[in-house]
């Protein structure tokens, strides 16, 4: 009995520590002046959020969180910072008007207040019983569920990834095409265009020549 109470207390302490770390890192990720440090803070925050998933007995999601957010998205944003040198300018961190800051504070305070009311006042304990079923950490069950009758989830994920990759490449290609010279100068179309252009030019030249001849004879 005493052991169970100690475990419950330990779990609550773990939760509070993880929550404080996550919220502090999220704040630093938004407010630190150096954008590179901000991205690192975001990566650490994502890794700390995995702690919540471990507390919620979802170890696969915790692993995926660390792999995708900390390993993938943070690295991607760091690459973004490197490719966008202007993002590192400290002048960007100074707001033009304090009005925007006030609006942001009011908006986020409203969201937080309404959410806190929803979380604390709404009778969640009646909707969800306090004693949850003993399911936890069933990786084999999750795998069977995911790859068995719900394979559509995996296919959807694959499709979305493919769409994102193709979309990114297509957008960058579009940008490059816009920068190139107009369409008639391109090798395929250009040669035909030039031929046509050349043919029409010679035709016009011949007509002028003929007109001049006629004028001369007259």
């Amino acid at each position, binding site marked *: 009995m005493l052991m169970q109470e100690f475990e419950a207390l330990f779990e609550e302490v773990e939760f509070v520590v993880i929550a404080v770390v996550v919220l502090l890192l*999220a704040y630093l990720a938004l407010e630190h002046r150096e954008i590179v440090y901000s991205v690192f803070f975001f990566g650490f925050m994502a890794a700390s959020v995995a702690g*919540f998933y471990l507390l919620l007995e979802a170890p696969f999601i915790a692993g995926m969180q660390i792999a*995708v957010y900390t390993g993938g*998205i943070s690295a991607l944003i760091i690459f*973004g910072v490197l490719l966008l040198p202007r993002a590192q300018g400290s002048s960007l961190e100074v707001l033009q008007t304090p009005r925007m800051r006030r609006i942001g504070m009011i908006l986020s305070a409203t969201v937080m207040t309404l*959410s806190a009311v929803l979380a604390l006042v709404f009778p*969640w304990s009646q909707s969800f019983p306090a004693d949850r079923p003993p399911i936890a950490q069933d990786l084999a069950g999750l795998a069977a569920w995911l790859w068995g009758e719900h394979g559509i989830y995996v296919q959807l994920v694959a499709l979305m990834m493919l769409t994102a990759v193709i*979309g*990114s490449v297509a957008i960058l290609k579009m940008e490059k095409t816009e920068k190139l010279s107009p369409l008639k100068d391109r090798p395929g179309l250009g040669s035909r265009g030039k031929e046509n252009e050349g043919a029409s030019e010679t035709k016009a030249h011949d007509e002028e020549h003929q007109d001049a001849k006629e004028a001369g004879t007259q």
Partner: protein
Amino acid sequence: MIPLSWYLVVAFVMIGLGAYGMVTKRNLIRILIGAEIMGNGVNIALVAFSLYNPVFSFTGQGLIILVISVTAAHTALALVLMLMYQTRYSTVDLGEPVTVEARKSD
């Protein structure tokens, strides 16, 4: 056992922080980070609801796998759009092109 409302409070505070970042920041990368923080908050709420549901199913976790993949995809797309933005306007300041347009119209 930790009550569900504790998780919800943390999730909603993260959503509020992300909203604050998205509204007040001018730097596109910070706006993206704000969106990611909001997404993390939503994920925590989803997993918590999934676990505290009396009838257990893996639906919540499957949904989270989907959401995390979508987040990764939209981050990649957002970075490409940022590259385009910088090429077009020579800045990543969200307010500046408007100013340039306003100057042009003046």
